[in-house]
């Protein structure tokens, strides 16, 4: 694996890492309150991306496209929570994981029926793909936008979780749902808040990802979700921070190597990535960034 690790590749890695970190937060928030790994998170993003593509195709203004994207993603998030997560809340996490796997395939095949396998192009933000030159390094504008947007989202989230009543409730629920309910945390409200925030993040990610890859197909964001899930487990599912760090790390590494390796090696990138994930899991099954002595209750 001798490749040129250039500033260019590092910039790509940071951009991808930022997006993956946001995805990790979206998955981790819902996991915190529901102990449910949402396999269908990528399909939420896909739906939002298709909304953007349709808006672009019809020539609607950008803000309409973004509004449509958020509307679709949020509606789907709440529908998913109400129709699938809620009836399954009492089930074992393994059942829930398989159920979201089913939902993911359902949404993907609906998109296939609706839009066809070739997909659509969401090109309303194409100019963000132009590079700007910073000290001889060409950085795409979207990379900077992604990093700034991720930092902003995480900052807002930090304030929300740390400084508001609902944030406190969510943290309490993530630690111990039963006890939190006993001392007056409203279960549906907390879950609703987590689904809402996770849906909003999916909307942001949809906008960012469509700029990076404007071609939206039914399997849009599927690969990313798989990699992020690995990253989340790699980092440590039990704390939001470690999950986010895991997501960022795996995004950074895959962006970096994807840019630095020659093609005949980078085609094996998924293998390198997952071998690394498996190796880490063997040494630290609770995750790379998990605190030592954390009481681990994994019930999948």
């Amino acid at each position, binding site marked *: 694996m001798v490749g040129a690790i250039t500033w260019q590749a590092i910039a790509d890695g940071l951009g991808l890492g930022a997006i993956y970190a946001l995805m990790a937060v979206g998955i981790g928030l819902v996991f915190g309150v529901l102990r449910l790994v949402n396999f269908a998170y990528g399909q939420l993003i896909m739906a939002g991306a298709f909304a953007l593509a349709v808006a672009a195709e019809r020539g609607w203004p950008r803000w309409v496209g973004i509004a449509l994207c958020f509307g679709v993603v949020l509606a789907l998030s709440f529908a998913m929570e109400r129709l*699938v997560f809620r009836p399954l809340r009492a089930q074992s996490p393994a059942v829930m994981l398989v159920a979201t796997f089913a939902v993911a395939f359902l949404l993907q095949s609906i998109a296939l029926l609706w839009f066809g396998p070739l997909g659509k192009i969401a090109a309303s933000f194409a100019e963000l793909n132009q590079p700007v030159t910073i000290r001889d390094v060409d950085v795409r504008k979207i990379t900077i936008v992604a990093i700034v947007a991720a930092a902003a989202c995480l900052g807002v989230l930090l304030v929300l979780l740390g400084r508001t009543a609902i944030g406190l409730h969510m943290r309490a629920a993530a630690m111990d749902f039963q006890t939190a309910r006993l001392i007056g945390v409203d279960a549906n409200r907390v879950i609703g808040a987590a689904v809402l925030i996770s849906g909003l993040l999916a909307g942001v990610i949809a906008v960012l990802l469509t700029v990076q890859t404007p071609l939206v197909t039914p399997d849009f964001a599927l690969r990313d979700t798989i990699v992020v899930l*690995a990253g989340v487990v790699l980092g440590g599912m039990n704390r939001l921070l470690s999950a986010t760090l895991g997501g960022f790390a795996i995004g950074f590494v895959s962006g970096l190597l994807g840019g630095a390796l020659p093609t005949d090696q980078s085609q094996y990138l998924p293998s390198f990535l997952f071998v690394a994930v498996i190796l880490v899991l063997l040494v630290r*099954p609770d995750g790379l960034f998990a605190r030592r002595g954390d009481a681990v209750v*994994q019930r999948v």
Partner: protein
Amino acid sequence: MRWSYLIGPAALVALAGLVGSLFERSTEIYFINTLVALVVVLALYLFVGNSGVVSFGHVAFVALGAWTAGVLTIPAEEKTALLPSLFPWLAERQSGNLVSLLAAAAVGAVFAALVGLPLMRLSGLAAGIATFGVLEITHNVLRYYEKIGPGTTAFSSVPETTDLLQATIGGLIAVLAAFAYQNSRFGRQLRATREDPAAARAVGISVYRQRLLSFALSGAVAGFAGGLYVHLLPLTTEEVYLNLTFITLAMLVIGGLTSLWGAVVGALAVGGLDSLLAEAENGIGTFGRTIDLPAGSRIVVVGALMALVLILRPNGLTGGRELRLPRRRTA
């Protein structure tokens, strides 16, 4: 040991084969497909059903079995032209149908055992993601490594020996293997760890060892299924990847995760429904329509059904129980 637990599933498989033989070739193929999928479901059941640990990685063993059997049975004189970058020791070899199926099962078992050696120490979510990793790695390597197979292109010139009879026999062998395992002391020990790991440990069962044994055994069945697949149609890496993982998991969950009867009922029910939908689309649809339309709509129905079953009957259609024949009461 209750023999009805074996006779029920086996009779159902035999019945599927018999009914299939009544149809002409164009319909028969649905039965063959379903029976081969059944073998994959049984492999999955052997591990997931008995251990309670979800695996997304079994299709990797199917893929590897398919590659083994495919590469072994392509006629040697065509191999140099079809797969020019193959390892010499693979290119020289050519074997018959049965040998290739056995080799597929052996490779599946060895690979599963090797992978399981480290992975079976994990449980819970980590195990799920790690087995998914195995699928990703296998898919990725088979897709690009042309020294062991056709890479991105489809297998061609593999003798199409998987007919209805062979698929039915394959299904019966898999049923028998699953039955024999779950009634052995190893199967019972693994089921004990599924119900209560702590209690199982307390009576001296090694969770790790039992899971590993079951994983290797189910790897053998999965590899065998892969052998059947490659002798059925010109296979590519995409056929033994996420879609197959989804559909076989759906079959198992819809039928009922924890019983052999459930695995067989689920596989045949979902396979039958899937075939009906495909046939209906062909029958009604005009040729002007795109091919992708029916392919998508089938998964919509199966996906919706799977979600519905999970919500309404989380233990599957059979409730995860074995078939009990009504007993004659002795007065």
